[in-house]
């Protein structure tokens, strides 16, 4: 199979032309714009596919199991210890003012608004964006994606949409679980380290939360889930360079998703706070 035109017999090596810096910069910028365009198209396509058939419900359920249930242990374990460490850190400050009872408020707000969605998304990114990119990338280099197309199946419907849909559905659930387990971890730390009353901790934690906080905490994972799954799919389906390229794409999927999630989080937080003032 011809992987590159250099394999064509009879092709003569061409004389090297000097390349200017501006050419390189313009070429790079064009490539970047092209990649953004390709990604945007894939992301839009993944959503548009939901509106018309054929729909791959079983594939979506399988992906929900793989992404959701599969991520549960690491999400719970991390959530527990993040909650505990948050209590220890905030209490060390509150104790200076004799206000350790406020620990529950601080931990609940930090977890539900910020740490829960972001940490869960980053953990799922590490586990699933890489998994999606490597799985689809391997399918691409072994011509399985072409085989799928050759048999009349649209890969964006069969491979991309179920993964995107599954991630969007399960990530808020995982976030809610992380929030709860984080508060449990915080409570354990508060009881054993600060000798706080668990009822007081939970009462303050729950009372400090408003509906806007829950809204903010559960809308973020939907967006983050969309980002990590579409980036994972895009990097997987644009692998170049065989198995080495699969490894490279996998790393890129995790790095790009993580950075985009953290950057997006800043803007989402600003937006959520604005709407919290206006609506709730």
């Amino acid at each position, binding site marked *: *199979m011809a992987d590159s035109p*250099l394999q*064509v*017999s*009879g092709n003569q090596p061409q004389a090297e032309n000097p390349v200017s810096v501006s050419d390189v910069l313009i070429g790079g910028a064009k490539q970047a714009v092209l990649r953004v365009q390709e990604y945007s198209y894939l992301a839009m396509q993944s959503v548009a596919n939901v509106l018309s058939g054929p729909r791959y419900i079983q594939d979506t359920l399988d992906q929900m199991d793989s992404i959701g249930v599969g991520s549960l242990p690491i999400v719970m374990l991390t959530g527990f210890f993040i909650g505990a460490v948050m209590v220890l850190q905030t209490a060390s400050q509150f104790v200076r003012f004799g206000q350790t009872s406020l620990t529950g408020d601080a931990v609940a707000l930090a977890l539900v608004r910020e740490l829960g969605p972001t940490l869960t998304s980053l953990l799922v990114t590490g586990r699933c964006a890489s998994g999606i990119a490597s799985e689809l990338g391997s399918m691409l280099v*072994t*011509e399985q994606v*072409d*085989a799928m197309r050759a*048999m009349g199946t649209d890969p964006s419907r069969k491979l991309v949409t179920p993964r995107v849909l599954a991630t969007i559905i399960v990530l808020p659930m995982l976030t809610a679980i992380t929030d709860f387990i984080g508060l449990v971890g915080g409570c354990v730390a508060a009881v054993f380290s600060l000798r706080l009353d668990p009822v007081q901790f939970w009462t303050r934690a729950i009372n400090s939360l408003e509906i806007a906080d829950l809204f903010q905490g559960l809308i973020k994972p939907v967006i983050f889930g969309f980002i990590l799954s579409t980036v994972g799919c895009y990097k997987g389906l644009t692998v170049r360079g065989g198995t080495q390229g699969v490894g490279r794409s996998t790393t890129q999927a995790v790095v790009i998703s993580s950075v985009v999630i953290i950057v997006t989080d800043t803007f989402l937080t600003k937006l959520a706070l604005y709407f919290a003032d206006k609506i709730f």
Partner: protein
Amino acid sequence: MAMEATIAFHKVRLGFGEGDVLQDLSFAVMPRETLVLLGETGTGKTLSLKMAAGLLKPQDGDVSVLGRPVSRMKEKELLDFRREIGFVFQEGALFDSMTVEENVAYRLREERVPEEEILPRVRETLRFVELEHAIDQVPSELSGGMRRRASIARALITQPPIVLYDSPTAGLDPVTSQTIITLILRLRDIYGVTALLATHRLQDGYALANYYFDTASGSVKPNRERQSDSASQGETSTRFAVLRDGKVFFAGTPEELAAARDPYLKRFLV
């Protein structure tokens, strides 16, 4: 002629960045004919097959298959159209997370064929490629030859009128290669499929040209033993197209290729 052809390439050009892999490529495959695309590695044989299936689009020129302008069709139209074509990929391209049964039944399940019809059809097709015993195995448990046979079974489950073979014997030992060629002969002579076969092995093409599958005895026989009344099986023919520098360098019958005096063609004949 091009109007009647099952597959027709007309002045097709395709390149990637630094040069054209295919330029001014024209050929036609007639109904029930097997065209053997012969060429060195990198001459664009696989690309030609992928263009015939609409998996790639030419930068110039036209590709038409079964009278449909494949090179100008949209992906959505092509998805439906590709159900008319069986594609056997070079390494099989079986879905490695599925069993042989799931691989072969893939198209039927996509077409929402009732589940009770699927297993008998899968078993029948696997029996045809002599792989029924491996129905529950996954591709990683199969040998190279078994994977190719499973891939052929997957391609022919819907009995398409056209089958595209991408180097079906590449990397296989001579005995296994012979098994695959026999299978292609059976497919051609029993079902009368039109085929485009890419290979760099001349012996594969000659085997297809000089032998036929006798349905009465169930064995492969030389063409000279073909009875005159075997026309009832439907006459099939095999032609060669040798690709070089992105074009058809030679097109003709096996006899014409064997008689060729061109030094480049002689390299294939050695």
